[in-house]
């Protein structure tokens, strides 16, 4: 790969940070109440990314499997936690965490594995330069899909409890009674991904492709990678949302096809 890219210096970043500072100043003046959140977010992004940069440099030079697996594990746990943190109501006990971790694992993890071994064919397959960014991109998107789909399913079922029970009273099966809601939730989980695919290149240049081009890759090479990522993200998100909806639906009803909202917990806000 061509490495003739322009290296950013500390003063360059300071200049960019002045823009954010100006925004924070203006926000405070207009009493928009977002200065504190914005400051914290800007600090977090700086610290987190610098830390990740350091860790990745260390891992890339060493490329030891146990370390990579540890990073993967941390990424998955944080993603599951993030999904749960965004739910208004969730399954009680370990179910909530279990359902999101399991679906992330089955989709993101296996799809990354598949891509690494059969598509990219890096040597060795766990070469961190490929494995970690790939998994990161899949996890990020899958996580959003799961969080949106899960929240929609549980919230809508809660609001439409009377309708679901009416359908059960008329002798519908549990799956049938919740089918319309499940379909809506599937759509809610998939829409960001579908929109991203539909708008790619026309409305927005995807971040990863932009990064590669900035780093000096020929555009067509960057595009090929982007298409690969889009397909992986779409299938990963789709499978994950399907699995999550199936598992939650199963848990919301019992063996006698009764709605069991006592198995849900309201997250305090």
């Amino acid at each position, binding site marked *: 790969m061509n490495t003739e890219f322009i290296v950013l210096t500390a003063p360059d970043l300071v200049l960019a940070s002045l823009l954010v500072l100006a925004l924070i100043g203006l926000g405070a003046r207009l009493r928009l109440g977002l200065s504190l959140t914005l400051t914290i977010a800007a600090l977090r992004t700086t610290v987190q990314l610098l830390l990740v940069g350091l860790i990745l440099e260390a891992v890339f030079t060493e490329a030891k499997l146990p370390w990579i697996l540890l990073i993967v594990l941390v990424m998955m746990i944080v993603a599951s936690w993030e999904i749960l943190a965004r739910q208004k109501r969730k399954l009680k006990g370990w179910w909530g965490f279990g359902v999101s971790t399991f679906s992330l694992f089955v989709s993101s993890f296996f799809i990354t594995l598949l891509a690494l071994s059969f598509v990219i064919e890096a040597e060795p397959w766990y070469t961190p330069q490929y494995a970690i960014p790939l998994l990161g991109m899949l996890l990020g998107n899958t996580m959003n899909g799961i969080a949106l789909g899960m929240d929609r399913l549980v919230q809508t079922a809660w609001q439409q409890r009377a309708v679901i029970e009416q359908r*059960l*009273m008329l*002798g519908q099966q549990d799956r049938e009674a919740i089918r319309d809601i499940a379909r809506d939730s599937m759509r809610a989980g998939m829409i960001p991904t579908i929109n991203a695919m539909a708008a790619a290149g026309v409305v927005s240049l995807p971040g990863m492709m932009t990064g590669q081009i900035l780093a000096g890759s020929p555009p067509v090479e960057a595009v090929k990678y982007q298409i690969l990522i889009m397909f992986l993200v779409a299938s990963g998100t789709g499978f994950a949302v399907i699995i999550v909806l199936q598992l939650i639906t199963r848990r919301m009803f019992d*063996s006698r096809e009764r709605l069991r909202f006592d198995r849900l917990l309201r997250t305090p806000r």
Partner: protein
Amino acid sequence: MLRLEDLQIPDMETINLTIAPGECVGLSGESGSGKTRLLRAIADMDEHGGQAYEEGVAQDRIKAHEWRRRVALLPAESQWWFDTVGEHFNAHTEHIDALGFDAAVMNWQISRCSSGEKQRLAILRMLANCPRVLLLDEPTANLDANNTARVETMIRSYVAEHNAIAIWVAHDVEQIKRVSKLRFQLNDGRFVKVWPV
């Protein structure tokens, strides 16, 4: 025949009851006495102890949705989820005229139906499944005298024609006298036969 055997519902005494085919049983009691919970337990919509049999078939021997097709619960407030009336009916419906509608009712928009119309339509929708047992939770609460009489006549003739069973929850003792020969009452968790004494 509907048989309740040691039916257990929280805060209520254990219930044993047998209702013969063709019978309509009245059930009354103050608000919060558990009439709705009793109907929900018979329809297997809530967890409960004990067993219910319909024509000798135990509740937990068949799938829950099959049980609910035989033992239908009409809730006090009906729910509708599609745009038109007809979409909620999966089988051909008789008795449309008996409740004062004509066939065009199937094209009506749900959003334009009054609560009384919805209540009568909910009865038609339930009967389209040809249930053996009807659990009616205040089926005429939103109806005027004319339509109340229609519903009473229609349910009575359905029960007689199909040799079915109905449990009719009502506040109005006069109504229970009109539709049933037996009346039970729920008082502070006690299930008592009040009539005929």
